[in-house]
């Protein structure tokens, strides 16, 4: 992700940053992956894979993990209640757009009727979640890491319970439904048939796929830019050594607050789309286990590396939504093949879908103990030692100092 500073012709060679040899190979892999993902809905139709409906929530969860990665991976703050912000985003969007929400009694006909538009509601969801993040973060971010984790855990427990208990507004455990749908060219997502330019189309859930994809792409784009900015470097500094970071002029509280707030706002957009896609949201979708699964995605792939997080997300989500079921089926079949009734029964009692949390738990313990940096670590440790320059070259000669001096500090007096 390192963008080399531009070399101006005639400048001294020291401005050049050596190119990363891995970059070219990564580019090619990325291009192939992008092409596949963009074409996926058509491939799915063509080959009859029927996994589109699994892919949409999968991609939403991965986007969610990318948002959490800002908090956990970049700023090094353990957030165990991330699902709460997700819930806040989803409920915010539902509040604006659902005919069952208390706002539906107030907004229509008022000057604020435009807020009921899905796209507006989605932006509101982003803002509300980001604000919630700042609100929780402001008093708590001076706390030490493990204490902060518990505050977020407490917050993550309180939010769904409040949603459950505040039934008159939130509809409690029954949940909110229906929820306003996104639309484009006068065509509502997920409603068939749909007429665009006089053509009647049956698109099914394909529009949601692309919406998710676009939001995911924007997120990746934004996160990379943030990571390579002044703020992104400050996050990394705070994560690595808070005291040294302060010594470098970084305000730890505002830096963390940005991480918390931006991380939360990503979950706002995701929550809004998730609600619209499912057309119903209820508090049990946003419990502690959701937070831990998203955390697991971040940690498995490689904390702090967005490609790692996407890989981790892909692995966990495809296990959760596709393979757990199929693997269980295979195990049951393998049990039946033995012909022995007791073995068959033993194999049949095995259900990966029921033990998904066991798998995630094992995953967390094993990663932390065996490969804490995740599958794709943020940065590789070097095997061989770096060598210094020969002694006589180490002391800067006068000319360099003068060349350097006009750049960094010399103040006019």
């Amino acid at each position: 992700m390192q963008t080399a500073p531009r070399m101006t012709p005639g400048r001294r060679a020291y401005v050049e940053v050596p190119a990363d040899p891995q970059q070219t190979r990564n580019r090619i892999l990325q291009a192939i992956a992008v092409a596949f993902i963009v074409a996926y809905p058509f491939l799915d139709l063509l080959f009859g894979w029927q996994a589109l409906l699994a892919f949409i929530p999968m991609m939403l969860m991965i986007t969610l993990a990318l948002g959490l990665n800002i908090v956990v991976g970049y700023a090094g703050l353990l957030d165990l209640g991330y699902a709460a912000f997700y819930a806040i985003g989803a409920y915010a969007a539902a509040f604006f757009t659902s005919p069952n929400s208390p706002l539906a009694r107030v907004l229509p006909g008022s000057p604020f009727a435009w807020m009921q538009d899905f796209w507006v509601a989605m932006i509101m969801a982003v803002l509300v979640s980001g604000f919630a993040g700042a609100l929780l973060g402001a008093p708590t971010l001076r706390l030490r890491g493990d204490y902060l984790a518990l505050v977020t855990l407490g917050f993550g427990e309180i939010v769904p319970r409040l949603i459950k208990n505040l039934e008159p507004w939130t509809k409690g455990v029954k949940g909110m439904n229906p929820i306003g749908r996104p639309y484009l060219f006068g065509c509502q997502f997920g409603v068939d048939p749909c007429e665009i330019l006089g053509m009647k189309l049956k698109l099914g859930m394909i529009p949601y796929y692309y919406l998710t994809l676009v939001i995911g792409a924007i997120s990746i784009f934004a996160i990379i830019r943030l990571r390579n900015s002044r703020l992104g470097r400050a996050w990394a500094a705070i994560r690595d050594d808070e005291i040294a970071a302060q010594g470098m002029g970084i305000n730890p509280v505002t830096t963390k607050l940005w991480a918390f707030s931006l991380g939360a706002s990503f979950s706002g957009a995701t929550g809004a789309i998730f609600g619209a896609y499912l057309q119903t949201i209820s508090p049990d979708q946003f419990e502690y286990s959701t937070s831990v699964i998203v955390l697991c995605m971040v940690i498995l792939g490689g904390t702090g590396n967005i490609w790692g997080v996407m890989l981790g997300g892909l692995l966990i989500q495809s296990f959760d939504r596709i393979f757990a079921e199929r693997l269980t089926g295979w195990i049951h079949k393998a049990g039946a093949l033995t012909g022995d009734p007791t073995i068959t029964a033993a194999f049949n009692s095995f259900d990966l879908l029921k033990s998904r949390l066991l798998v995630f738990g094992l995953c967390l313990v094993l990663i932390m103990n065996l490969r804490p940096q995740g599958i794709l670590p943020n940065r590789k440790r070097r095997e061989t030692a770096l060598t210094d320059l020969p002694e006589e070259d180490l002391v800067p000669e006068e000319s360099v100092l003068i060349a350097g001096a006009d750049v960094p500090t010399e103040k006019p007096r």
Partner: protein
Amino acid sequence: MTASNDSSDVVLDVTGLTKRFGGLIAVDSVDFQVRRRQIVSLIGPNGAGKTTFFNMVAGQYEPSAGRVIFNGKALHGLRPHQITARGIGRTFQNIRLFTNETLLENVLVGMHSRLKSGPFASLLRLPSQRREENEAREKGMALLHLVRLDRYANEAAGNLPYGMQRRLEMARALASEPQLLLLDEPTAGMNPQETVNMIALIRRVRDAFGVAVLLIEHDMQVVMGLSERVTVLNYGQKIAEGTPLDVQRNDNVIEAYLGRRHKRPEDEAADGGTH
């Protein structure tokens, strides 16, 4: 920055600085000054309060009493990051680099308080932000070249051997454009050749950037070869101050380092026995 208008050219002016930890007085009403472009050493036996003094100047500790005036303004109540922004850069006794970040990123972090782009400018990559980033990277590379680490700009800082890490820390501190550089044992753990190079580097940095340098050192070769003034702390109190030569001859200092000069009776008896 208003040095020429200022009547004095004192950059750091400390009066009565005191730090108590419970019953222990780590630093006991120390008065202390550093002038522009001056290299000053703070020495003293282990536990004399040198690092505590540093941490108070850098804002890591709140002084129990006394005040620190930097460039004519009191630093009282400022957080460490605000003090860095005012123009005090520092290194740490036990190197504290951002080990997962590249060398260049480490230096760029050092520039934090001199850069302005906020998150939204970075998200949109506004022209002003791009210009600032490019300039910062060029400055960063220049600083890395200064400490002779530019060829490892993209390496993770944690991969550097010890001596090079010390140099990187120096470049990172310089990146904040300090007017006063606090160096906490810059040659600790270095071999004699590395030490000589570090002395030369510090002196040349001072000459080129016009910074004042305040360093804590144990190595007397460094202290005597580099500093223009030396202050000696013992049990939190200032016991001597002056040029390296003055301090070397000072009785209090010799006593603090070598123990009391008068001999104990049994030593005298032993001496008598040999003669």
